[in-house]
């Protein structure tokens, strides 16, 4: 595997709606891992995500501590609604928390009338545990879940049908 992973999906929605769904905590709390993500959308702005009640209950039941902030990073480029570049670090797990910051890029491009092509490029040099986590796990019930492929499928489902995959 190289140090870069690419994930691409086509979504029937405007670039503005997709941008909002990626950067607004009310939206990010609805799909994927459902943890709200907070962005200060300017160069040098802070990025972070906080644990959901469900995550807290799960970690408590399994007897491991969970930090309040589960993802952190910094905004490197913000060009709404086309491109977002940021650093990204997963703090839920001590192994990934000890790895260097990775670089995450969202590209939103119009590919036809009312359709956008969304590409996530995640560069993870020196961060093998983070790379494995975002790649997703195909085994049922395994830690980490489906990674970016699953998050993007869920985002598409939410924007096109109003429903996420878990409740479908």
């Amino acid at each position: 595997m190289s140090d870069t992973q690419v994930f691409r999906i086509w979504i029937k929605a405007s670039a503005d709606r997709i941008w909002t769904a990626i950067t607004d905590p009310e939206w990010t709390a609805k799909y994927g891992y459902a943890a709200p993500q907070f962005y200060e959308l300017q160069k040098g702005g802070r990025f972070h995500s906080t644990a959901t009640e469900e995550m807290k209950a799960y970690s408590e039941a399994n007897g491991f501590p969970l930090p309040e902030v589960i993802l952190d990073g910094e905004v490197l480029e913000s060009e709404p609604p086309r491109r977002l570049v940021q650093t990204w670090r997963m703090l839920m797990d001590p192994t990934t928390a000890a790895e260097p910051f990775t670089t995450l890029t969202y590209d939103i491009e119009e590919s036809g009338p009312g359709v956008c092509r969304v590409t996530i490029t995640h560069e993870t040099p020196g961060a093998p545990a983070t790379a494995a986590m975002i790649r997703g796990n195909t085994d049922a019930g395994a830690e980490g879940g489906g990674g970016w492929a699953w998050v993007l499928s869920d985002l598409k489902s939410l924007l096109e049908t109003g429903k996420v995959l878990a409740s479908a």
Partner: protein
Amino acid sequence: MTDDDRVFKALADPSRRFLLDLLFARDGRTLTELERELEMTRFGVAKHLRVLEEAGLVVVRRSGREKLHYLNPVPIRQIHDRWIDKFTEQHVTALIDLKRTLEEES
């Protein structure tokens, strides 16, 4: 042709599946690197990569003068999500594990 048709058509060809296998093992490869692994002309490999790219199974990124090819797992995930829900997944995984274990023994 719908997106699904493109994905299934792309997957129907053994050379294209082999190209995806190569990228799954290590992606970010150039056409020249991929061409070495196949008994096929450069033109033929480029054509197959184009079909995979149009189906969204391969994403091409430019790095300087080179074009690097990456496996995009999202369409495969969508096929998975279409027919396998979370509950079914556990049974499927158990059966696949069983098959793997038994076949390794023999």
